[in-house]
């Protein structure tokens, strides 16, 4: 279903409608009989992106391709293959794009480091701006007469 620009627009609309309008897993026979294996297959499927629709995992999508991929995942799970093995099988065919959780590599280094770096940078900035000059500041001057007056008015206002 590769479309030229016009068809792409229609396709986006279709993509919005169909996955939602139908059930993702709409055939109970698709599920594995063993609940543990089925749970594992679902966990793997949630890591894999439906290639035809945007931002849905193959578990959530009801496009034909997603259904095929779900079926393959379940076959591999039934054969007892490891999660990593199954994901690698998919990546081999569809590339890194299929992984909703990108693998850690040199190109995703920045992506994965943000959750660690951001709080540290934040703390550094806070330190830099608010604590570094601490010692250089003079102690507070006592309130002036006018300030005391204003303060009294404010306090009165609060309690009125």
């Amino acid at each position, binding site marked *: *279903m*590769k*479309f*030229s620009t016009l*068809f*792409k627009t229609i396709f986006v609309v279709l993509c919005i409608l169909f996955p939602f309008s139908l059930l993702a897993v709409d055939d109970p026979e698709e599920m594995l009989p063993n609940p543990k294996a089925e749970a594992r297959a679902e966990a793997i499927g949630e890591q894999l992106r439906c*290639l*035809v629709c945007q931002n849905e995992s193959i578990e959530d999508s009801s496009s*034909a*391709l997603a259904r*095929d*991929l779900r079926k*393959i995942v379940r076959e591999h799970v039934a054969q007892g293959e490891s999660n990593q093995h199954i994901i690698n099988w998919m*990546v*081999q*065919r*569809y*590339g*890194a*794009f299929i992984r909703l959780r990108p693998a850690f590599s040199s190109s995703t280094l920045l992506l994965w480091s943000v959750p660690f770096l951001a709080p540290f940078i934040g703390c550094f900035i806070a330190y830099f701006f608010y604590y570094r000059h601490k010692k250089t500041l003079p102690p507070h001057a006592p309130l002036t007469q006018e300030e005391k007056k204003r303060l009294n008015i404010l306090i009165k206002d609060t309690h009125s």
Partner: protein
Amino acid sequence: MTHFSPLTRRRLLMSIPLIGAMGIGFSFWKMLTDMSAGTFNSHDINTPILNRPVPYFTLPGVIPQQGFSSTELKHLNTPVLVIFFASWCIPCLEEMPILLSLKNFLPLWGIAYKDSPYNVKEFLHNSGNPFTRLAEDRHGLVGIDWGISGVPESFLIGAGGIIRWHNPNPLTEETMTHILLPLVKKISS
């Protein structure tokens, strides 16, 4: 930093958000202009299969035409274009005239993706048949090994069954003359 005044230093520090926003804005501008020019599409997917030998498969033919297998592709000496198509797909129908003119330059081997032989024959009867060999992938499982996400998709197979080019979109006059045919010429020589 020593020769800047404290104010300038603070200003430089506080332009960091501006610089960041400008960087992001510039990239967006580049994406948008490339999108209008057609050189960038955020929907496009990389093809990991590129420059690798074709995956293993054997497919039956759509009678009377003969099917084919990966072994046959691996023993080829001249380039072949493998096209995944289906009778139920409108862009495939639109692509047919291009394929009919393309068959004069190189052999086209078709794979009918998730289709019934009857519909395929009907489809080719109406539009004309550009394919030298025609196989059927009834359940779409071979398509998954090739990494296709829809139809039509075309792959240029070079000597030794190596995939040299992948086009995930319908072939157009433009891609044919500007990309595909020069590439065929290059790898044939």
